[in-house]
């Protein structure tokens, strides 16, 4: 039995790796993509343009503008001097926000009153707008606190002391880059598995395989092993890049991470082989792969939180193995989690894997026509 499985596994490896382009597609994109996506995936703003519309001649507005100048988040792209210049600056996306200091801004503050700072934001990407607004409010809150202490000697009666656990600087790279481990692993696994049965069916070699003494179980194992081995190797490579290139802290138990990777690969391979054995042509296999991959990524919590989804869609994500693996990678990397916190994530993935593999195996024979 083992000899037969080994023979099939070797044959599968040859089928995957003999073609130079096929080899390159398995190796180059993940390497390039972990680097490119690692830098691209962030919600932190970095030198985004803002415009300043200052009608005030006093010193307070200048003090505030200096704070914006010193911030790494913003870059002042233009100083404007009348109302009509606001719209072009925003419409053409030269600036995400325009700060408007009215004529009596400094005077009002110096005489102990409150002054309004008008902020106009480009809401085309409302998430970026909100983040920018948040940064602006933080800068102003800092100014207010310092001003109250220096000039009014009357700080607010209570202060928030905010701490964020696991990611003290709230660097969103820390959130996204471990997520890319899941993202690229699932893509590679589908590449290896989703077309593997459909291709043989189209070529007729799958029928030949079925008349050999191999049982469907042995075929299943032989078809799964290459995905498992390639997925583990590439997953390991991406984890190494995450730790050593991007300096993301790996605080938890490495074994807990690998148990997660194994169950994740099991479920992804199961689904990939299931798609492949349902499909009659490779075109259908490709369609099936996308039909699974795209929702699996978009509804995994990778970029937008599952908690924000409607309840029905949240229930749907329970079928998505990537959802569980994302929690595992992020918990192990940032939260320092070990097995105790993660059982509830391993079990559903293993169940998905076993069920989908069983379906794939049972479809091997039934589809013989």
């Amino acid at each position, binding site marked *: 039995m083992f000899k037969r499985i080994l023979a099939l596994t070797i044959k599968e490896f040859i089928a995957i790796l003999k073609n130079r382009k096929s080899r390159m597609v398995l190796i180059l994109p993940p390497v390039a993509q972990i680097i490119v996506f690692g830098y691209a995936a962030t919600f932190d703003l970095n030198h985004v343009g803002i415009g300043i519309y200052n009608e005030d001649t006093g010193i307070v507005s200048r003090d505030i503008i200096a704070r914006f100048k010193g911030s790494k988040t913003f870059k002042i792209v233009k100083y404007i001097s009348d109302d009509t210049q606001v719209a072009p600056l925003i*419409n053409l996306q030269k600036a995400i926000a325009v700060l408007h200091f009215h004529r009596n801004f400094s005077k009002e503050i110096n005489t102990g009153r409150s002054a309004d700072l008008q902020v106009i934001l480009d809401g085309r990407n409302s*998430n970026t707008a909100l983040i920018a607004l948040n940064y602006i409010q933080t800068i102003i809150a800092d100014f207010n606190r310092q001003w109250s202490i220096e000039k009014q000697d009357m700080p607010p009666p209570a202060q928030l002391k905010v701490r964020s656990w696991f990611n003290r600087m709230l660097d969103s790279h820390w959130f996204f880059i471990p997520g890319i481990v899941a993202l690229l692993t699932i893509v590679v696994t589908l590449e290896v598995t989703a077309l593997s049965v459909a291709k043989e069916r189209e070529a007729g070699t799958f029928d030949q395989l079925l008349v050999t003494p191999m049982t469907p179980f042995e075929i299943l194992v032989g078809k799964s092993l290459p995905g498992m081995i390639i997925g583990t190797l590439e997953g390991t490579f991406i984890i190494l890049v995450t730790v050593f290139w991007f300096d993301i802290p790996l605080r938890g138990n490495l074994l807990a991470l690998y148990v997660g990777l194994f169950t994740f690969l099991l479920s992804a391979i199961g689904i990939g082989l299931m798609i492949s054995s349902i499909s009659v042509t490779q075109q259908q296999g490709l369609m099936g792969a996308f039909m699974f991959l795209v929702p699996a990524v978009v509804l995994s919590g990778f*970029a937008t939180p599952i908690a924000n*989804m409607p309840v029905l869609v949240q229930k749907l994500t329970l079928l998505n193995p990537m959802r569980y693996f994302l929690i595992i990678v992020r918990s192990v990397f940032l939260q320092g989690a070990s097995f105790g916190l993660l059982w509830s994530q391993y079990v559903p993935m293993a169940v998905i894997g076993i069920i989908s593999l069983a379906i794939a195996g049972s479809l091997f024979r039934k589809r013989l026509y």
Partner: protein
Amino acid sequence: MANRDTGKNRMRLSGLIKKEAYQIIRDPSAIGIAFLLPVILLLIFGYGVSLDAEHVPVGLVIEKQGPEVSQFISGFYRSEYFDPKIFPSIQEAERALMHREVVGIVWTRSNFARTLLNTSDAPIGVIVNGVDANQARIIEGYIMGVWINWLHQYARSKGVALQVPVNVKYRIWFNSAVRSRNFLVPGLIAVIMTLIGGMLTSMVVAREWERGTMEALLVTPVRKREIILGKTIPYFVLGMGGMAISVAMAIWVFNVPFRGSFWALSLSSGLFMLTAIGLGLIISVTAESQFVAGQIAIVITFLPAFMLSGFVFDIGSMPGPIQAVTHLVSARYFVSILQTLFLCGDIWPIFIINCLWLAGMALFFFVVIRKKFKKRLQ
């Protein structure tokens, strides 16, 4: 003579288109890809993808009850952003945070009321789960909002007005209700259409080589240009159909305002569809087999469009070299056009620059296809 030639050319081309059309109709997967897939994906994503956090589970630890504390706490119950839960001790709240049952903790100590009366800084402890840094920052902002409201309320109850030197008054243009769906749905259209273009065409040339029908085609007088056009036109029509359905859904199902003009939308959609189909055809002519074509399509269509198009991640905040890489992703231009057309209107400079990029890319893709397309047997 010349007339007869063009007549023949047209006949050959229409014959190829007809053949491709039959193939599309007989294997329903292409029609499914073009019409059904955008509907399904847009429905799931349009409802599923949102960055607006509501009902955030937050743990409250109150070491000593009192009128000030309950006034402060009631702010969390009134806010639709929070789903508060009381914990008897900070240890238990921290454990809930570890188990992801709450994403934030607000902690008032037993000496809160006493220090408050002395008007010195009474501390309110806030802990947020920073794993999802973006959500953590949003939640911090929400908590800060509750706190500021309470400060005003508290000052009023003491008969004084809270003096804040600078008040930020903001207006968010184009999307004043700050619905993230309004920018995510147009972005999703670009991502979904990239996929559909790639899926439709990435296998169509490789398939004919594999089945040997390409060789049969080569012995006919048909020209390279005609084969390429014959492969492009039917899928272009299909893709544009899917595009029309997606736009209609964005407007009427998801109620995203559309403030631009339809001809600008049609023109840019057409250009974008050419780049999406062009990319698929490049994959198809470079890969020798459907298997390799399928692998390449999985790797280079979806993820780059998802990550590098500006659909969720702001391109302006990426490092310079990565911004340069995003110029290779045609979805980037279309996302920018769609977000502007939908939410802002016809802003010509943005429209023209992005359309020029799209046209340039489409042209480049088809030159590559022509070059790579072998009308010869080795």
